[in-house]
């Protein structure tokens, strides 16, 4: 499968530079695009999709500049935008038929494709239900189905799990895992736990730059600091820890009598603290925490 390459890409909104010197090579597999809100994830996606023209640099797919491929580039792309609403008065099947027509899929082939995809995303029984009656999770699944209509080489999902309940999140991860091995999948999110299980690589966007981590599982090991677990009884003391340290998690333990804090710090926060293995979320907080 061809590679997707971003070469020396810069982008700004007016005088405000958003992305600078982006150099990334993507191959098949699931790549998480991580960054806090406002980091530039959607902007980068729009550049990859040739919807935004970079101020400098180029996007190359299969050795061709994507802007020169023009409309034919979209034959390779499937895209799920953030919080899609779609058309409330269309049924699921009608909507897929509409999107399939826009993607230039032949009628005969489209019918079979729609049936297959509705089964894949577990919406077969809802094919004649209006989208207006769908839950958020059902809409997301329908969104994935429409993104897969043209059997894309590049699948781009922008915040696909935002607003989903845990069951829907799991369902979604399973679908992506199924299809992710044969495509370039870019999954933009700020919910790190959603990609921990399915993404093998990650692009971190920080301070206008993007860094590609080729092996996600190595990331926590690259943290130049430690992760500690400590327990506190007095609720009022938690504030002190938050002010002094980077607290990645707080939860109640021992029948709600104590608070367990997960702290990222070079020094041991208190005598009772014990060292813990860092997770991807800890790494995210380490790189992005103030």
């Amino acid at each position, binding site marked *: 499968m061809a590679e997707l390459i971003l070469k020396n890409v810069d982008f700004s*909104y007016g005088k405000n530079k*958003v992305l600078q010197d982006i150099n990334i090579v993507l191959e098949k597999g699931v790549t998480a695009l991580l960054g806090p*809100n*406002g*980091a*530039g994830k*959607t*902007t980068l996606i*729009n550049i990859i*999709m040739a*919807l*935004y*023209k970079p101020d400098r640099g180029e996007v190359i797919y299969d050795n061709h500049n994507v802007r020169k491929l023009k*409309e*034919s580039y*979209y*034959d390779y*792309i499937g*895209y799920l*935008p953030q*919080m*899609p*609403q*779609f*058309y409330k*008065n*269309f049924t699921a099947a*009608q909507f897929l*038929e*509409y*999107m399939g*027509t*826009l*993607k*230039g899929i032949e009628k005969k082939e489209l019918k079979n494709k729609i049936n297959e995809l509705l089964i894949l995303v577990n919406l077969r029984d809802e094919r004649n239900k209006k989208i207006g009656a769908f839950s958020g999770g059902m809409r997301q699944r329908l969104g994935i189905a*429409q993104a897969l209509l043209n059997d894309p080489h590049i699948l781009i999902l922008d915040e696909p799990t935002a607003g989903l309940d845990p069951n829907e999140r799991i369902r979604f991860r399973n679908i992506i895992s199924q299809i992710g091995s044969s495509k370039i999948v870019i999954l933009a999110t700020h919910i790190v736990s959603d990609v921990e299980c399915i993404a093998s690589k990650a692009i971190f966007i920080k301070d206008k730059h993007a860094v590609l981590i080729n092996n996600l599982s190595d990331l926590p090991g690259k943290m130049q600091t430690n992760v500690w677990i400590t327990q506190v009884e007095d609720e009022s003391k938690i504030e002190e820890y938050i002010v002094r340290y980077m607290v990645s998690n707080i939860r109640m333990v021992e029948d709600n009598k104590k608070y367990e804090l997960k702290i990222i710090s070079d020094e041991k926060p208190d005598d009772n603290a014990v060292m813990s293995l860092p997770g991807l979320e800890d790494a995210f907080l380490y790189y992005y925490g103030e």
Partner: protein
Amino acid sequence: MKFEVKKLVCKRIVYVIVVLSMLINGIYCFNSADRINSKKYKNASECQKNIYKKIEGKITQDKADFISTEYERLKKTIESGDYSKEYDETTYSGYIFLDYNIFKEIYDEFKYNVEYKTEAENICKKANECEKIYEIKDNKYFVEYYKNYSVIFSNRYIDEFYDTRGWDIYFKYSFSNLIIIMLIIFINCGIFCNEREEKMAVLIISTSSGKTHLIRDKIIAGVIVSLIIACVFYIEDFIIFMTVTNLHGFDNLIYSVRTFKMCPLNVSMLQFCIYIFICKITGIIVISSLVALASSMSDTNFVSSVLAVIFIIVLVIFNNIKIKTDILCLITPQLYLKEYDIVRIFNKPMLKTNYNMIFALLIVIAVYTAVWWLEAESGKVMKKERI
């Protein structure tokens, strides 16, 4: 394209508004048509219809004698003052004064039909005289103007008599135009901006057909929906008038309706109806194109509808200042066909409605080109979204 039509019309609110609009138009239409019938003296209306039925068709001396004899008799009775105001079975309508009013109206109409030939010949004669005067003055425009005038009015006569009251009221009725324009704005204002408002725009332009075929399909869908709305209401008007006023005499010439005695078209009622229908449809397509333009210039339905209303107001202003380029004249063309309403184009006289139909087609081409460009540009390079 069926999906684009579905996006516009398949909404509950649209069904409700259209049904309500048809109801309101139906009531208004019925009340207008029913003016032909007297509410107080229902017998008189029936009686009048029966007398018309008796004398309708080819104009003969017998019919002329019958009308004038009865009219003169009743006139004499009324002028003498010696008549009963009570119900009288021996009269046509039950009351002598109603009989007089009925026969006076029919007599005037009948006389108009019979004498029309002479009137047309006089107009022709005067037009010829004017033509000769302008020939001497070497004014080619007015020579042609009066030449056309005399050609139109030459050989005009009415040899059949029908009750044209229904036609008169039908051609005056224009309330449905207002409803049609409002519905077109309401239904079509989201044709382009809906995609931006529902955040489908990015999804659409990231498909191979999204940028070009979709624009074409949306334009066609907008025109189709506008034409369907127009046809539904114009058919409703026609059916109600047909039912209430008993429209007939489709082969009768348009100038047999007194309001149109100076109409420049030598056509039958049916041909006239077809002509004004074509004018109206052309006007509706212009309005549809302006609504599409408003939609392509906006990001929300609200802004689009406000902009569309502004465009219509501009058309209304042009209509009121009575300049030759007046698209709204196409929506009520019958008002401009009561007389020889001409505009001067390249020093040649041309019917105002014909001129505006040609101009309307040019406007439609220009506006839809602008729409295409706006939508294609907005899909090319997006710099609207900010994080």
